[in-house]
């Protein structure tokens, strides 16, 4: 349920009023989520959820605790505040306590679309029907997922901070499989559902599935590889999660080992990674920890590690500026198309998406995972054959060090993480495939 500004103010005022603690902070996330899932060319489930989550933090001096509930009626809000206060009263003092933030200024983020907020079950079914009909006409089996949401997020506290953000989002993903098991996947995401072209997503998945028939098996090894944007979205999502100043300062991070330090330049000069919650193609949350404003930030500046996220505690302890971790990262690209990157490769691979990615070694950010739904051989600058999938072991840091050429940046969805990022396709000097994984 989308709360009005008056309802929000009434709830947050009541929470602050009800608190017996020295400090109180209330966060609300409320809205509607709807989805339609299909498999075997038939709908498998579809839902609509109206939700309200209320999270309260209370503190007595440096003794603090959180409580949460799924309701915004006065009785539930009051009970949640009192529960947080009771937990805080009996908690020991936290050496990592930081006082509440006062009034803040935030970026102006426009991430709301009325059409997305009011999307009907019939419109979701229409999109799925287009995909299913295409699959049936081509003798393929489709599966997919449409999701749209309209939410309002709120933070307010007894130190005077208060802000809210309304947002919509939608995403659609499709997997097409042939009777031989050849598989293709494509996805799109936007805060405007009308910007998602279901037919285009369907065609991309169909094309990949049809091109993946009769793959050849290649030996494992290091291949010059073109990585499509979905792969980069996943890789970037993992790396951004580990770009933390505290872990680096404590000596338990890639950004503290192997000679890499804040200010060093481990990556090529053309690597620029930044974030901006107001980025128009992919708007995101404008605040982080405790209402900390998320500002436009450059993380990797022409190959140099310029910023790591800094928690409010770590900043206070070390005299640093607190820097929140963004939901969305933007990796600058260049003007090459995917075809132009492929044209640069005499013998290598085109990698479309990743699956089951896990951390193997935090010292190097080494990940393991699999290729899925589109791996192709490149010969003489052209895609020539589908290739049987591989397991790979690779680090996003080593990958960025290996970049030879960048394509144009676009909004892409990581198949593994589901994260939407603004990323280019890249040509990497090498990507380490370690064993054959004959699954489709």
């Amino acid at each position: 349920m989308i709360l009005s500004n008056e309802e929000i103010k009434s709830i947050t005022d009541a929470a602050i009023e009800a608190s017996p603690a020295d400090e109180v902070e209330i966060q609300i996330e409320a809205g509607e989520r709807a989805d339609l899932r299909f498999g075997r060319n038939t709908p498998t489930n579809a839902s609509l959820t109206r939700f309200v989550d209320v999270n309260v933090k209370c503190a007595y001096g440096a003794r603090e605790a959180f409580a949460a509930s799924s309701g915004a009626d006065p009785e539930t809000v009051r009970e949640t505040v009192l529960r947080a206060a009771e937990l805080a009263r009996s908690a020991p003092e936290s050496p990592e306590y930081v006082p509440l933030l006062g009034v803040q200024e935030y970026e102006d983020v426009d991430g709301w679309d009325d059409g997305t907020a009011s999307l009907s079950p019939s419109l979701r079914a229409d999109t799925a029907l287009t995909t299913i009909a295409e699959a049936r006409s081509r003798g393929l089996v489709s599966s997919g997922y449409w999701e749209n949401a309209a939410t309002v997020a709120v933070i307010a506290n007894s130190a005077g901070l208060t802000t809210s953000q309304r947002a919509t989002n939608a995403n659609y993903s499709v997997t097409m499989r042939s009777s031989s098991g050849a598989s293709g996947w494509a996805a799109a995401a936007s805060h405007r559902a009308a910007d998602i072209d279901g037919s285009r997503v369907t065609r991309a998945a169909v094309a990949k599935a049809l091109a993946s028939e009769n793959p050849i098996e290649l030996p494992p090894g290091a291949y010059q590889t073109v990585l499509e944007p979905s792969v980069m979205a996943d890789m970037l999502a993992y790396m951004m999660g580990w770009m933390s100043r505290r872990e680096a300062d404590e000596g338990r991070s890639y950004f503290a080992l192997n000679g890499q330090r804040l200010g060093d330049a481990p990556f090529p000069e053309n690597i620029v990674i930044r974030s901006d919650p107001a980025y128009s193609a992919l708007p995101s949350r404008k605040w982080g920890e405790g209402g900390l404003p998320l500002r436009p930030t450059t993380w990797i500046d022409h190959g140099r590690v310029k910023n790591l996220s800094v928690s409010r505690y770590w900043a206070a302890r070390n005299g640093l500026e607190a820097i929140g971790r963004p939901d969305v990262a933007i990796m600058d690209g260049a003007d090459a198309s995917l075809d132009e990157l492929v044209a640069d490769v005499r013998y290598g691979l085109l990698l479309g998406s990743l699956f089951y990615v896990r951390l193997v070694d935090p010292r190097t950010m080494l990940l393991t995972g699999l290729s899925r739904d589109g791996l192709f051989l490149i010969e003489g600058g052209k895609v020539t054959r589908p290739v049987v999938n591989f397991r790979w072991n690779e680090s996003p840091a080593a990958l960025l060090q290996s970049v030879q050429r960048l394509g144009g940046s676009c909004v892409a969805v990581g198949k593994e993480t589901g994260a939407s990022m603004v990323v280019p396709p890249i040509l990497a000097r090498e990507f380490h495939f370690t064993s054959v994984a004959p699954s489709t």
Partner: protein
Amino acid sequence: MAQHEISNSAVASAAIDAASAAGATYADIRISRRLSQFVHAREQTPLSATDRRTHGLGVRVLAGGAWGFAASTSVTPEEGALCARRAVEIAKANSRLIETPVTLAPSTPVQAVWATPVVRDPFDVPAGEKLELLLAINAEAMRTARVKFCQSMIYSTREQKFFASSEGASIDQNICRIWPEFKATAVSSDGADFQSRRSLAAPVGAGYEAVTSLDLLGEAARAGVEAAAKLDAPPLVPGRRDLILMPSMLWLVIHESIGHATELDRILGYEANFAGTSFVGADQIGKLQYASPIVNVIGERTRPNGLATVGFDDEGVAASQFDIIKSGVLAGLQTIREQAHIIGDAASHGCAFADSYATTPLQRMPNISLLPGKSALTREDLIAGVEDGLLIEGDGSWSIDQQRRNFQFGGQLGYSIKNGKVDSLVRDFAFQSNTLEFWNSCDAIGGPDTFELYGTYFCGKGQPCQAAPVSHGSSPARFRNVNTINTAKC
């Protein structure tokens, strides 16, 4: 009237009546009141405890042969009826997409109550008492000089889950689970290396007594010593060798390579857009030589302390036990009511689960366990039969492909075995194999006295992704000639 005072039956009746009136041919409702508490500490720093309570309802209907579902955090007869009508609207919108209407296998509707046996409710234990234990754990681990960090936590959940259906079922369950965990990290004196050792304590379906029955302080002291020892341990020399996997590690291999591979919804393609499918065919029951003849694997929701142990699944089907692998051959698959008939089964194996009021039930794993060997083999008996091998304790990094063939697993502790004896701790190890080759190389399984239960609170599947708790038991087992790799040289 406050939400808390409205009876579940009244809300259920309103929802089911409204669904029928709107044209549903079947309807069910789950009303969930869920408590969770997360208490954690870093070194000697208590971190803020989080206490979460959710209360909501979800109505699922069949109309026009298709599913529809609607959920809300407002638990009233009026909202239940509104959700029912919305669910029917969704189902009718989707009915034009289907070629074959959903068919449910029969299930006897019952009126029943069930609860996890609990000696001490985790929510009656003050957060301060839990925190005191965590700080003591951290202190024990950090008594070893080079252990600079230790994080620990206790996570507990209790869910009152009410289920009612248009067929007449009315089931009230109270399900309690708990998980203590810590991780000690040692840093080399020159700051150029760090190694961690995570606790082996498993999440279980039980009360706080499961925490106090463990020697967590003793394990923390050992973990500190072992984390530091990993800094000095020789790296694994890669190559093919025999493996002995302890239950604290083998549970994850069972989960990924047998549990997920034998889910009928994956086999049919329901998960093709997300979690993947399976190399197993529905027509391979009784034919596929999944493992060596000494391997027997069962699924059940009845094992004491099992994370998936309940009285009834989320379609109201009574908990039961069934064979998945019998004498090495595929014997059965995990099913729910709408899929059982597809493989010719008369009834569901009771594998439906939804992780909250707001999610639809999916086919999820029951507890799946490797049965002990028939003879009373011990860990030492298994080691004695190995010339060059690796023994792994605790789960580490893991990954498996979308049809559950190719996998890579690490662990917390690796010990080289030479000439029938444990030789030394090693580091930077993992193994790669594929499911059928691996399970057919199993030549010894420990006896009943060595059987232990492990598992995960958070097995992910479905869109939107749902987390399911599930346990896996086993004895130590031996696997021949497996490819081991050095993860520092990948």
